[in-house]
């Protein structure tokens, strides 16, 4: 059996499967599956974005203009669920699918058929979730966190929403198992763990987080399901249960989930900044250890989402101090990015622009997070627009900018053509200005006392809401440029991209031609000095 070590059983390496069904529905190729993940994420980004546009339009001025309050609540709930589980997570999994095998010299993902299953579950999961909009009683409207007892008052939508979340969880767990097996088992000889690109490292740790917490979310929503449909009393104080039990379990999932959405972005940024500063990353190993520390700490800080629920003071103090600790490894990362740029020969192509904006704006989101992590301060900010400002800085100018950085950086490798640098820069400048017009005023609104998740508000908040909405409309429209630029690069661009798309780029993915052939590395590549970005270069 094991005399001939390995083979490809019937498809020749350069063959692209013929026909739509064979290529996409029966796909096992990591590049095709990565493409499908990225396209799904883009579609979901626009669906969730359209909901955000309606929300901002309603909040343009005080009073109820466009939508009914219940529908507004449905929109905020679905916007959150879709952006988290439908846009950001699949986009990062798409980047992982495309890039990890290329970056470690693997032929494909370790379990290619399971890879297909973990993708194809997702469109169905979102069909299930979005179908709730048309059910009697409307979609789930208790916020994406689905706190009981409020969410238990949902109509028919609750079962559909919960099963959709189960499906997303199954998909994430299978995707993560695949990523871990790929990284640990399929590295080419010579790509040692501490020579791996940082994007691969951050994904290894992210995948571990996902396997650890998605089942916990499944457990939490299953308890909601049995409380509503089978008469259990998990969250009913009269039966000895406690609504806070849900919040504890949910945030035990929820806080690592936050890092699931940001760690791969850290990885992308750690690839892009050295390329355009033309210097190796400053402090490679501390970057790895910082990522691992952040992941570990993410398991012991969950209750900082619940400071105002009436926890014992000792518990509040513990969670506050643990939260403050996270700023240490995060500070290491930001410091190392800046130190990488220090005295580098920098150029500012679109990916680098997004990466620099990421470092600055993510730090803004990090600082507002520190403010929220302080117990006495949180009593003031809790459930206000300050929270909305905070997590949009880390998720839009953090995670989403990280994804855009990665897409611009690797798009020429995927398509074989350059995107339009000019339109890329226009996309960047419009985005970075409008996103601050959109989210920065929310800090002021929150500090002044405007609560989140409301369709109408006191006239005192009118000015900044209008400013924020204008920023929102511009930011939303600007993303059409992004789509246009991707379509241009895929179908219309004339100029061929070289194998090493960026002058300063190092790593295995730049050793294969652009576009990367349908099957790369049918045999493990031979690693020569200078091919890897880390490990065989002087630091």
């Amino acid at each position: 059996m094991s005399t001939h070590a390995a083979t490809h059983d019937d498809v020749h390496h350069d063959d692209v499967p013929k026909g739509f069904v064979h290529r996409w529905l029966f796909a096992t190729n990591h590049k095709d599956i990565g493409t499908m993940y990225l396209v799904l994420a883009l579609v979901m980004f626009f669906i969730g974005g359209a909901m955000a546009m309606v929300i901002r339009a309603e909040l343009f001025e005080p009073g109820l203009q466009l939508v009914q309050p219940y529908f507004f609540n449905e929109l905020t709930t679905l916007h959150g669920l879709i952006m988290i589980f439908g846009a950001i997570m699949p986009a990062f999994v798409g980047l992982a699918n495309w890039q990890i095998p290329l970056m470690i010299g693997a032929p494909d993902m370790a379990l290619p058929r399971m890879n297909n299953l973990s993708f194809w579950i997702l469109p169905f999961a979102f069909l299930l979730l979005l179908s709730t909009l048309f059910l009697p009683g409307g979609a789930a409207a208790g916020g994406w966190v689905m706190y009981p007892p409020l969410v238990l008052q949902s109509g028919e939508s609750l079962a559909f929403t919960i099963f959709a979340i189960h499906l997303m969880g199954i998909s994430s767990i299978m995707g993560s198992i695949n990523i871990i097996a790929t990284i640990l088992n399929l590295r080419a000889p010579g790509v040692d763990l501490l020579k791996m690109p940082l994007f691969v490292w951050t994904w290894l740790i992210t995948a571990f987080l996902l396997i650890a917490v998605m089942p916990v979310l499944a457990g939490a929503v299953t308890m909601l399901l049995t409380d509503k449909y089978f008469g259990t009393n998990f969250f009913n104080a009269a039966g000895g249960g406690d609504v806070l039990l849900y919040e504890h379990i949910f945030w035990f999932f929820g806080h690592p989930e936050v890092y699931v959405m940001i760690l791969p972005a850290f990885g992308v940024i750690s690839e892009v900044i050295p390329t355009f500063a033309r210097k190796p990353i400053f402090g490679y190993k501390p970057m790895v250890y910082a990522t691992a520390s952040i992941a570990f700490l993410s398991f012991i800080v969950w209750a900082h989402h619940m400071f105002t629920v009436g926890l014992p003071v000792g518990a509040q103090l513990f969670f506050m101090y643990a939260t403050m600790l996270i700023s240490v490894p995060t500070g290491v990362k930001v410091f190392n990015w800046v130190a990488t740029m220090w005295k580098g020969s920098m150029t500012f192509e679109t990916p680098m622009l997004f990466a620099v904006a990421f470092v600055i704006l993510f730090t803004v989101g990090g600082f507002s997070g520190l403010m929220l992590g302080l117990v006495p301060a949180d009593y003031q900010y809790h459930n206000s627009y300050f929270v909305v400002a905070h997590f949009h800085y880390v998720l839009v100018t953090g995670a989403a900018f990280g994804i855009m950085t990665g897409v611009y950086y690797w798009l020429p490798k995927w398509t074989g053509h350059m995107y339009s640098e000019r339109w890329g820069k226009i996309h960047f400048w419009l985005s970075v200005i409008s996103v601050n017009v959109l989210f920065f005023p929310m800090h002021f609104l929150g500090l002044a006392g405007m609560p989140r998740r409301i369709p109408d508000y006191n006239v005192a908040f009118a000015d900044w809401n209008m400013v924020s909405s204008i920023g929102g409309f511009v930011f939303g429209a600007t993303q059409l440029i992004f789509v246009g630029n991707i379509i241009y690069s895929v179908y219309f661009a004339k100029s061929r991209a070289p194998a090493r798309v960026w002058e300063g780029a190092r790593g295995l993915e730049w050793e294969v031609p652009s576009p990367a052939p349908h099957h790369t590395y049918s045999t493990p590549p031979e690693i020569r000095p200078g091919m890897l970005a880390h490990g065989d270069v002087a630091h």
Partner: protein
Amino acid sequence: MSQQAGAYYVPHGSRWPIIAAVGLFIFMWGAAHWLDGIEPEGPLLLAAGAAILIFMFFGWFGEVARESMKGLYSDQVDLSFRMGMMWFIFSEVMFFGAFFGALFYSRGLQVPWLAGEGHGALTNLYLFRGYTGGWPTNGPDAIGGVFQTVPPWGEPLINTLILLSSSVTVTIAHHALRDGNRRRMLPWLVATPILGMLFVFLQAREYMDAYTHLNLTLHSGIYGATFFMLTGFHGLHVTLGSIMLWVIAYRAWRGHFSKEHHFAFEAVAWYWHFVDIVWLGLFLFVYII
């Protein structure tokens, strides 16, 4: 067929994953309809989804078994499968962790708080005056009425012994397989799922007894909820594990496994040990303490 020594193995495309995704969707869609009382669509969709999933399991696993026996899988592929199974079991551990967490939190914190301990004093004073907590409990409103718990030293103890011996039998079978002794392997391997099914049977009897004689139901406050959800999900896993063991026994009988190559056997054995260990946690924290 390009057979190239030292090359990586990549499987060809497959229709099974998309069938699995569609089956899973129809199954979940039907389950949601049924819960909302939309009939007959709910049960019909659920049944259709289950049928597709069963068809898919036969098809997909059958294909993998055939490919494996053709010798297509390298040691590297074998290791990927092993990692996949290990991390899958880890995810299952975390799933049970959520319910164990619920149990510890309710017993250790929320019930004492409802009874007025610590910072729960005012809740007790204003809402639940006179509630003294303790465990087992069905809460201040005694939801579900007075109930008794299942005594641990009767059937649960027998069930513990059954599961522990089934872990022994599957290990003996594994050793026999590694020695290439098929005649010794088969009876021990078949004994394992029989013990598993005996466990499920006794568990079902215990449930009936709880419902009819002890008045311990799913509605019996937080105790009933944690008791039935923990033991219920565990029982479901024993049932699944037993089915997996029957499949493995059938494949072993057909001579699918060699001394060196029997990953499917080992994966199921790992799963069985995992189910066993979860039971020990249950026996200790749900029944005894």
